[in-house]
């Protein structure tokens, strides 16, 4: 264990806390992982602080748990997996280092939230490829490192996007920069030469950023990241498409993305969309939900600098022809939900309302990646599994996000339950593990394992686990980085 | 030219592997992308033209020497020229020529394959590369009323070729050819028993001196007959007379035509009128020595201009298979009423070899058959009921393969089908 005094020397005593209430906050989250209290919470101010903390931890074999977002945390990855850990809370590192319009990139520290970054990039005529309605306290770096799906599949070339480069302190205590950021040269020298830390791969024959992503802080602590940005459209026209038949919606989604037509594009079931738009107003929720079809596709067509009206008009007409062939109809409002309002909602900096905690309700989400063919059957399977477990399936939100330009589909079940209902909580808790087990057997790929289901997921492939452990031995031989997570 | 003269060409190989495949622009699917039977069968890079270029240079540098393996690799090649075409899509270098020179070097140095030695003995003694007696060479023409050009002046000579003369199953093609030509009013003559082997197969297998002797004797005969045009239905012979004889300055003004070229001309002139329906779904196999290797020889003498781009003085034009005989056989087929032509994937300058060439039929019958089977499978995939070609060597190769695998595909020479239609 690192002595408190040594920590205070690094970050200042005001940034080291042993306060029970504070420790309590970090000892649990909205998931069902075991409650384990950290020994301290430390708030570094910069890379140097982080490096020193990691080196101290290395010397004393003290577990470190990096956290960059504020609460509520949902997946258990920020709760210590073992006793005697120190939470390294990076949420105070809020520098937006650079926003570069010409090279379509932004660079920022882990404490920067979407709400803080969106205005900064907007000012430069840029935008982020966002996840769907992150909470206000969500760290952008955190989201990128978690490989959260993003809502513009057209601009999601690779599952790692939009993450570019990171600066990381490995569990060995070494500082490393990935991709173009590695060098040669300091960041300033690279900028002077015209570089902007855009190329994510490398340097040379390894792409370390991929190993850090998805690692839940088990390889190192990221102290800044750069992310690819897209340019702001000058004209947008969003649409909704409703159907009781998910297969039809999926067919349309496939072609929309394959032909690179829309920007934002995702599928929700009526529960999810009603939850998002009702903003915790039960009557509104009920009204919208009843008016909506079972499945809703949202997409947005955009124009940029050159003849935006022509582009949007042409694409809208092409989409209309496409939808006619499939037997669907894009509309501008559906069930009382306005496509334009929804677009504004998903593009805006997050407000106070967080759709996964809509007034009096909590949510446990289960998500995985599927190929195109299995999406419908896996969703049906989940409904059967959930119903069989006694869960009220009408409370289940479903979110299907095409990613990797339509090669993969993120399928997410948001199991809402009344926060005071102990019975429902127990059902959801059990389901969150049982469903994973059953869905894997049916062809769901859980690429982001969290919580109590993580061992089930990891243990599917011993060879991958062995390889990951070898990589862990390279980057964190002392296993000080978030031990107890994944297979470590 | 000698092997040393092609060193520069061999060193120019860039190891790109295109010699293994049909021209990439023409690939239309996963199947039928291979064009070189040798590497397709044996898989080691050694067996591709690229591999042969490398060990050719190594041989000149004495890093490899004669061995059973060397001979096996050298002679496990049908000399079909597909590699040459594929390479020359991009490159200005000779590929097939050094392959010929390597074999010539082997023979000159006394490293030969016994079965080929026996064939050459047959050539020297009986005048045929297909085992048989000289006296029986003319038997195919018994009953035909056709003049003997070795005894009379004849402007148009029909050369049957060794394969046809000594393979009874193929006599009908030669007979049909003569019959068609006569019906078109051509006063054709044949050599009969006195016909001489063209020598082409001898050249392909490295026996250059034997080839030269045959060419000299043949040209003497043709000159004596006052021949202006030589017609043959054998692609190997066609290539020998048209290309090789020209290469070695023997051909003179003799016009050399394949039967399909001549027949196409006669049809165009209205001297042959295919009117009867021949209802058949057919696919056409381009014989290597009629197709890509059938283009005229280009005489060139000069030198490479030193510099950083390989050009020559005078400018050298490379034979790339562009002017091979592809259309006349197809014109003949298209002129036959009721015949539907289905093309295979590998055709014209990138046709897959029948398997028989380069002495492979004799030195490695199993490889020859394997190659033919590949082609039979490709032919069947077109849905055609018949595989039509224009060379007795190909016909024999395919017929043997079909017999082996029990396929119901029929093999025809173009001439047979035309005769039915006229």
């Amino acid at each position, binding site marked *: 264990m690192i002595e408190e005094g040594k920590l205070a020397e690094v970050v200042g005593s005001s940034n080291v806390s042993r306060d029970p209430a504070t420790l309590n906050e970090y000892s649990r989250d909205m998931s069902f992982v075991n409650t384990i209290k950290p020994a301290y919470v430390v708030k570094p101010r910069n890379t140097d602080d982080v490096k020193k903390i990691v080196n101290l931890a290395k010397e004393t074999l003290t577990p470190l748990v990096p956290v960059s977002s504020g609460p509520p945390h949902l997946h258990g990855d920020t709760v210590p997996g073992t006793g005697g850990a120190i939470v390294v809370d990076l949420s105070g590192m809020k520098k937006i280092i650079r926003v570069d319009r010409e090279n379509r990139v932004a660079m920022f520290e882990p404490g920067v939230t979407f709400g803080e970054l969106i205005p900064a990039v907007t000012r430069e005529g840029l935008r982020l490829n966002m996840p769907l309605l992150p909470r206000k306290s969500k760290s952008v770096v955190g989201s990128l490192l978690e490989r959260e799906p993003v809502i513009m599949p057209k601009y999601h070339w690779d599952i790692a996007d939009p993450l570019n480069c990171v600066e990381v302190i490995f569990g060995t205590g070494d500082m490393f920069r990935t991709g*173009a950021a590695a060098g*040669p040269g300091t960041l300033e020298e690279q900028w002077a*030469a015209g570089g902007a830390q855009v190329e994510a*791969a490398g340097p040379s024959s390894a792409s370390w950023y991929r190993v850090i992503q998805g690692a839940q802080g088990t390889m190192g602590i990221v102290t800044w990241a750069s992310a690819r940005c897209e340019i702001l459209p000058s004209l947008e026209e969003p649409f909704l498409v409703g159907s009781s038949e998910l297969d039809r919606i999926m067919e349309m989604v496939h072609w929309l993305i394959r032909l690179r037509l829309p920007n934002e594009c995702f599928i929700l079931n009526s529960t999810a969309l009603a939850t998002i738009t009702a903003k915790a107003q039960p009557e509104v929720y009920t009204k919208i939900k009843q008016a909506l079809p079972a499945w809703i596709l949202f997409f947005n067509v955009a124009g940029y600098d050159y003849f935006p009206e022509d582009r949007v008009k042409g694409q809208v007409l092409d989409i209309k022809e496409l939808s006619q062939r499939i037997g669907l109809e894009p509309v501008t409002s559906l069930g009382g939900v306005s496509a334009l309002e929804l677009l504004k909602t998903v593009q805006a900096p997050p407000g106070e309302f967080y759709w996964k905690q809509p007034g009096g309700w909590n949510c446990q989400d289960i998500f995985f990646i599927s190929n195109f063919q299995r999406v419908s059957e896996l969703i049906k399977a989940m409904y059967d599994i959930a119903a069989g477990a006694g869960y009220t399936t009408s409370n289940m939100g479903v979110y299907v996000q095409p990613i990797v330009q339509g090669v993969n589909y993120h399928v997410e079940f948001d199991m809402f339950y009344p926060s005071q209902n102990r019975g429902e909580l127990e059902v959801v808790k059990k389901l969150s593990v049982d469903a994973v087990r059953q869905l894997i057997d049916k062809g769901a790929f859980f690429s982001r394992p969290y919580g109590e289901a993580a061992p089930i997921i990891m243990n*599917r492939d011993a060879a991958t686990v062995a390889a990951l452990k070898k990589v862990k031995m390279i980057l964190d031989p002392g296993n000080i980085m978030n031990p107890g997570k994944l297979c470590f | 030219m000698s092997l040393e003269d092609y060193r520069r060409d061999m060193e120019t190989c860039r190891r790109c592997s295109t010699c293994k495949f049909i021209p990439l622009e023409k690939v239309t699917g996963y199947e039928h*992308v291979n064009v070189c039977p040798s590497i397709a069968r044996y898989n080691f890079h050694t067996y591709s033209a690229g591999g042969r270029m490398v060990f050719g240079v190594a041989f000149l540098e004495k890093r490899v020497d004669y061995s059973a393996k060397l001979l096996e690799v050298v002679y496990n090649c049908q000399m079909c020229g597909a590699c040459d075409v594929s390479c020359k899509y991009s490159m200005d270098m000779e590929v097939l020529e050094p392959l010929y020179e390597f074999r010539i070097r082997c023979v000159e140095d006394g490293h030969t394959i016994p079965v080929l030695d026996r064939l050459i003995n047959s050539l020297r003694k009986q005048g045929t590369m297909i085992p048989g007696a000289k006296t029986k060479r003319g038997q195919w023409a018994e009953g035909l009323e056709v003049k003997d050009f070795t005894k009379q002046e004849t402007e148009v000579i029909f050369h049957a070729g060794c394969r046809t003369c000594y393979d009874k199953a193929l006599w009908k093609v030669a007979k049909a050819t003569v019959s068609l030509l006569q019906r078109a009013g051509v006063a054709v003559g044949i050599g009969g028993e006195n016909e001489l082997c063209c020598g082409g197969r001898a050249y392909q297998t490295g026996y250059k001196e034997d080839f030269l002797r045959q060419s000299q004797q043949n040209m003497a005969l043709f000159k004596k007959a006052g021949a202006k045009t030589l017609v043959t239905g054998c692609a190997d012979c066609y290539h020998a007379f048209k290309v090789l004889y020209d290469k070695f300055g023997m051909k003179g003004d003799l016009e050399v035509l394949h039967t399909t070229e001549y027949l196409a001309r006669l049809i165009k002139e209205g001297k042959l009128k295919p009117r009867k329906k021949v209802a058949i779904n057919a696919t056409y196999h381009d014989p290597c020595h009629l197709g890509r290797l059938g283009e005229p020889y280009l005489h060139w003498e000069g030198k490479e201009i030193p510099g950083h781009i390989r050009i020559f003085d005078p400018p050298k034009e490379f034979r790339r298979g562009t002017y091979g005989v592809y259309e006349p056989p197809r014109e003949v087929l298209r002129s036959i009423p009721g015949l539907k032509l289905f093309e295979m994937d590998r055709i014209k300058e990138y046709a897959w070899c029948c398997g028989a060439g380069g002495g492979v039929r004799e030195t490695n019958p199993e490889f020859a058959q394997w190659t033919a089977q590949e082609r039979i499978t490709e032919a069947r995939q077109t849905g055609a009921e018949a595989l039509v070609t224009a060379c007795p060597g190909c016909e024999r190769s395919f017929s043997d393969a079909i017999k082996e695998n029990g396929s119901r595909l029929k093999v025809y020479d173009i001439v047979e089908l035309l005769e039915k239609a006229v």
Partner: protein
Amino acid sequence: MALKREVYRALEDVVGPENISEDPVVIESYSFPIRKATTGGKDAYLPRFEAITLPKDTAEVQAIVKLCNKYKIQFKASSTGWLYCDPTGPGCIKMDLRRMNRILEINEKSMYAVVEPYVIYAQLQAELMKRGLNCNITGAGSNCSALPLAAHVNLGHLSQTGSYGERNLLALEWVTGDGEIIRFGSLGSIGEWFCGDGPGPSLRGIIRGNTVPLGGLGVFTKAAQKVYHWPGPATFPIEGVSPRYAPSYIPPGFMIRYLSFASIDKLIEAVRKIGESEIGFELMGFNAAMMASNAATSNEEDIKYFKQFSAQVQGPGFMVMIAATSPRDFEYKKKVLEKIMEETGAWSLKAVEDPELGPGFLWRFIRTVGSIRETSRATGWGGGTVGGTDLFPLMTKYILHTSYLKEDLIKRGLILDDALYPFVQSIEHGHTGHGEILIRYSPSSPDHIANVQGVLNREANKTAIEGHFGVPHHVWSDELHGMYGPHTSNYHLWLRKIKKTFDPNQVSESSNYITAKE
């Protein structure tokens, strides 16, 4: 150093006697042709492989790798084997993966394809086109392996919309240097190919970056890659006879232009605009010399076209291709291109607009068949320098440094004079790019090579490091990694750890990667 009989017999037991050879004729043919001129007549040659093996599947590959570990011999695996495939020392066998040549799956709706190493891109693209799909083909040509881990980088003509190997790679199967089989992502978890990442961290990060390990980190036996929509016909309407093929018409929705610019800045501006407006299907910054070589069917014709094209370009340029998904899409993209041309003062090369030559250019750039003509036909020997992958303007600026060197080499008569314009390319609608200087020459001696390639290499390294231009793609080997690493987050030390961890006995010959030396 011949293999011990025990070792040879053990390998023979794995692949069968007809699939292994140590005959001098066979092993000689696996060396890249050596020219006496380049070795100065010295009796010094690249070491030959001790034996060549032809495994037929992953099990045989694994068995061979395990044998190599047991007997402490090295191996070098390759597919079509064009460059970087030779060992640097004795005691190395070749694994020629020719028999592993299946397309395992094409999933049209999930838009991916799975191949073994000896499927070539021409095959894959042709099969994909039948299904309305397309793939990014390695720039070296569609004669090369379709595995996105086989080529050096796997950038290609389609990278503008079809990215490149590092990002197109999905799940894969890997036989590690110590003989383990690891199946990445969804493949290991559920036996499906659509995702190569996770669970948790992505192992894709350790097996390739901008560049691949070039045989130095085990064997990649199968891989899936993203494929893309193809708006064209199932089979392109090609006519003609080799070497002159061309589509009989340009299919609707397609257009090709070669645009040249008064300055590199104007070119960069145009690339940015085309990228941001998302109108380009392909965008490749060939220079006039490459365009000439691409079209020409002989060196004589190459010279003629180069003269003609050089006179018609105003400076550096690029080929841009439009491939629209509908008539409206086509009209829009065409209109935007015309506007950008106007704004940047671009000239359009007439030969490419010419109905005689244009269709041929279009198809050759889609099928990627011109690289051999562009780099190799002149003398069979070439070289140059390459940059890395990073911002398009940065990579262009970097490669321009080297193009100034080319001027001196031309003046001294050491290389072919095919002008100074670099070859640059745009990736993912201009988010990143890459550049190269390609030279052609006929080396007369090892000194000649040193004075050309040696000088270019030295200056390229100096510029990249001192100019902070990133790590170029040519950086491999302990020496070069050791040169760049200390300036670049000591990446070489981490790379070495990967090698040491996953190939502890160093049986993957890694002269084109990094060794695990202390």
